[in-house]
C-alpha cells in the first residue's frame, strides 16, 4: 500500500517536471525514427567515378573470332555503385580528393588489346583516399567486390570461346588462321574415317591405325567433360553456406539494440535520479524513521524506473512497426522481454542512485557506466583479442545490457534461447536490489 502512495507521488513529480516528461516521450520516438529510417531503407550505393579511356568506336573485343562489346563486359562495374562517368584521370582524382566519390576506376585505353592478347592480363586502376583507415578498408572491399563480378563475367565469356575451340577440335569445322579459312576434320571425323581406310593399309600396320582410331574415340569422349572442367576453372571453389543457430534479421537486431539502449538510459537515469532525489534534504531519513521500509523505497524506485522504461521500450517497438516488419503475433514473447529488461535496468539505476547519493552524481554515473557497458556488450567475438573479449564478457555479465539484448532478440525472433538471459536478469535484479538496500542503509546512517 505504501509502495503505491510513493509510486503515485513519484509519477506526479515526473508529470510536474515537463522537461523530463518531454524528454522521455521524445527521446524514444526520435531514436526509433532515426534507426527505423536507417534499417528500413536499402543502404545507399557508394559513389564511384569511372573513366573509360577507350574511344567509343574501339570498344569491340575480338577473342577467338568472337566479338564482345566492352561496355557490356564492364556493365557489372556500374551495377552495385552509384557510378558517375568522368572525362579523364585528373577529374577522377579530383572527385576522390573532394570526397564526392569514395573511389575512381580508370579503364586504360589499351584494355581491349590486353584482353585480346593470350599472354597479357587486363589491368584497370583504382584510385581512393587512404588517409582514413576505416574508409580505406570499406573502399578496398567495394572495389574488390566490383571486380569479382566483372571477372566472373569475363571468365564466362572466355570459357565460351574456349569451348567453341573444343567443339571445333571434336566435331570439325572451319577456322580462320593467318587470313585463310582452314577446314578441320575433328576427332569425330577422324574416328569415322580411319575404319574406312583400314582395308587399304598394309596388314602389318593395321594394328597401329586401329590404335590411332581408338585414341580419337577416347579423346572425343574425354572432351565431353571439358564444359564442366572449364566451369570449374572459372570458379574452382564454390561456397556453400550452412548457417547454424537461428537466423535473425538485421532490422530485428537493430530494434532490439534501440529498445535496450533507450530503456537502459531511461531506467538508469530515472532509477538513479529519483532515489538520489529522495536522499536530498533528509527526505530519506524522514521516510525511514518508521514510515516506510527500506526495501519498499528500493522496490518502488525499481518499479517506477522499470515502468517508464517499459513505456519507452513499447513505444519504440510500435514506432519501429511503421518502418520495418514487426512480428506483432509474438508480442507475448517480446513484451515480457522488454518488461524484464526494463526492470533489470531499473534495478541497476536504483543501485547507482543509492551509491551516488545526489542527483547530479547519480545522473553522471548513469551515463558514464551505461554508455561504455552498452558498447562493450555489442562488441562481436573475434573483433578483439581473445583475452580482451573474455574480460568484456566478464564485465558484461555484471551489467544487464547483454542479457537484456539477448532476451529482447529472443522475443523478436523465434527459436532463440530466452531461458538463460531471463535467469541472468533475475539474478542481476536481485543483486542490484540488495546492493541498493545496503547503500540506502548506509546513506540513512542507520
Amino acid at each position, binding site marked *: 500500500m505504501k509502495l503505491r502512495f510513493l509510486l503515485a507521488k513519484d509519477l506526479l*513529480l515526473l508529470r510536474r517536471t515537463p522537461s523530463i516528461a518531454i524528454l522521455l516521450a521524445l527521446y524514444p520516438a526520435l531514436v526509433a525514427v532515426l534507426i527505423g529510417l536507417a534499417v528500413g531503407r536499402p543502404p545507399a550505393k557508394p559513389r564511384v567515378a569511372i573513366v573509360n579511356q577507350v574511344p567509343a568506336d574501339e570498344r569491340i573485343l575480338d577473342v577467338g573470332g568472337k566479338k564482345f562489346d566492352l561496355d557490356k563486359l564492364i556493365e557489372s562495374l556500374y551495377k552495385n555503385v552509384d557510378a558517375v562517368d568522368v572525362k579523364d584521370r585528373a577529374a577522377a582524382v579530383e572527385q576522390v580528393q573532394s570526397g564526392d566519390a569514395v573511389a575512381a576506376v580508370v579503364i586504360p585505353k589499351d584494355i581491349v588489346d590486353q584482353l585480346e592478347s593470350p599472354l597479357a592480363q587486363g589491368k584497370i586502376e583504382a584510385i581512393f583516399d587512404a588517409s582514413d583507415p576505416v574508409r580505406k578498408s570499406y573502399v578496398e572491399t567495394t572495389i574488390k567486390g566490383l571486380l569479382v563480378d566483372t571477372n566472373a563475367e569475363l571468365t564466362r565469356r572466355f570459357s565460351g570461346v574456349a569451348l567453341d575451340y573444343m567443339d571445333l577440335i571434336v566435331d570439325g569445322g572451319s577456322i580462320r588462321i593467318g587470313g585463310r579459312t582452314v577446314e578441320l576434320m575433328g576427332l569425330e571425323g577422324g574416328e569415322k574415317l580411319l575404319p574406312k581406310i583400314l582395308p587399304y593399309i598394309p596388314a602389318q600396320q593395321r594394328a597401329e591405325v586401329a590404335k590411332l582410331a581408338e585414341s580419337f574415340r577416347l579423346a572425343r569422349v574425354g572432351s565431353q567433360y571439358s564444359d564442366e572442367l572449364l566451369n570449374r576453372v572459372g570458379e574452382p571453389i564454390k561456397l556453400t553456406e550452412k548457417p547454424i543457430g537461428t537466423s535473425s534479421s538485421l532490422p530485428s537486431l537493430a530494434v532490439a539494440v534501440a529498445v535496450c539502449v533507450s530503456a537502459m538510459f531511461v531506467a538508469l537515469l530515472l532509477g538513479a535520479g529519483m532515489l538520489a532525489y529522495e536522499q536530498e534534504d533528509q*527526505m530519506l531519513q*524522514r*521516510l*525511514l524513521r518508521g*514510515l516506510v521500509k527500506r526495501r519498499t523505497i528500493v522496490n518502488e524506485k525499481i518499479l517506477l524506473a522499470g515502468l517508464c522504461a517499459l513505456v519507452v521500450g513499447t513505444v519504440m517497438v510500435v514506432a519501429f512497426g511503421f518502418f520495418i516488419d514487426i512480428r506483432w503475433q509474438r508480442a507475448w514473447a517480446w513484451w515480457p522481454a522488454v518488461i524484464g529488461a526494463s526492470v533489470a535496468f531499473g534495478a541497476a539505476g536504483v543501485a547507482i542512485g543509492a551509491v551516488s547519493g545526489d542527483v547530479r552524481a547519480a545522473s553522471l554515473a548513469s551515463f558514464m557506466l551505461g554508455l561504455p557497458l552498452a558498447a562493450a556488450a555489442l562488441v562481436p567475438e573475434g573483433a578483439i583479442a581473445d583475452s580482451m573479449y573474455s574480460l568484456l564478457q566478464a564485465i558484461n555479465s555484471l551489467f544487464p545490457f547483454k542479457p537484456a539484448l539477448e532476451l529482447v532478440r529472443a522475443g523478436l525472433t523465434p527459436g532463440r534461447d530466452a531461458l538463460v538471459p531471463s535467469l541472468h536478469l533475475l539474478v542481476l535484479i536481485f543483486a542490484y536490489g540488495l546492493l541498493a538496500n545496503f547503500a540506502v542503509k548506509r546513506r540513512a546512517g542507520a
Partner: protein
Amino acid sequence: MPVLEGRELVRTYGDLTALAGATFAVEAGEVVAVAGPNGSGKTTLLSILAGVQSPDGGEIDMHGSRLGWVPQRAAVYGKLTVRENLKLFARLEGVGDPAAAADAMLGRIALADRADTRAEELSGGMRQRLSIGVGLISDPTILLLDEPTAALDPLQRERLWELLTSLAEHGITILFSTHAANEVEAHATRVLLLDAGTLVYDGAPMSLGHVPGRHFEAAFVDFIRTRRDEDL
C-alpha cells in the same frame, strides 16, 4: 512523570565519539533545548531519539509517547503542493482520514491560504512550517526539531516560535536542538548542554551561571570554557 528517557546513549562514527553516554529525562509539556557548539552531538542525539539512527549503546524509554520529527532541512517535496505533502505523509503515517488531517494541519501551521502552492514556491519560513506540519501530522505527543530556525531570517524565526509556543501550550512536549543561546534563553524551559558528545549540563537555562544584567550568550560560552579548562 517523564515522557521520554535516554540512558547512557552512545554513538560513534569510526574513531569519533559523537555521543558519550548521555542520560536524561524529559517531562510532559517541557520545551527542552538541546544546545551546544557545532559538532557537540545535538543532531546525533535528536536522530537517535527520532529513530533515524540506532545508538551503539544505551537505551531509550518512550513511555508510550508518539514522536514527531522535523529534520534540520525542510524535508518536503518541492513539486508537491502544501496540501499534497501533508496528505502524502498522512497516508504514510496511516492516518485514518488523510484529507481531513491535511486540512486541519493547514490551519495549525497557518498555511491554509497557501494550500495549493507548490512547496518549492514557499519562503524558507513557510517551508519550515510545512515541515513541522509533516512532523505533526500523526498527532505526536513529543515533537523533535533539529535546528528549526537555522536557515530563517529574524522575522521568520519569530513567526516559527509563535507556532512552537502555541504547540507547547496545547500540551505537546518539544525538544529542539540549537546553537543559538538567545533561543535557549527565550524559549526553553530546560536545556541539555552538550559538548564534544558529553552532556555537561541539564537544568534550567537561567541556572547556567547566569547573572542578571549579563548577556545570556556570555554565560553560555563561559560555562563551556570553564568546563573545558577543568577537564584539562
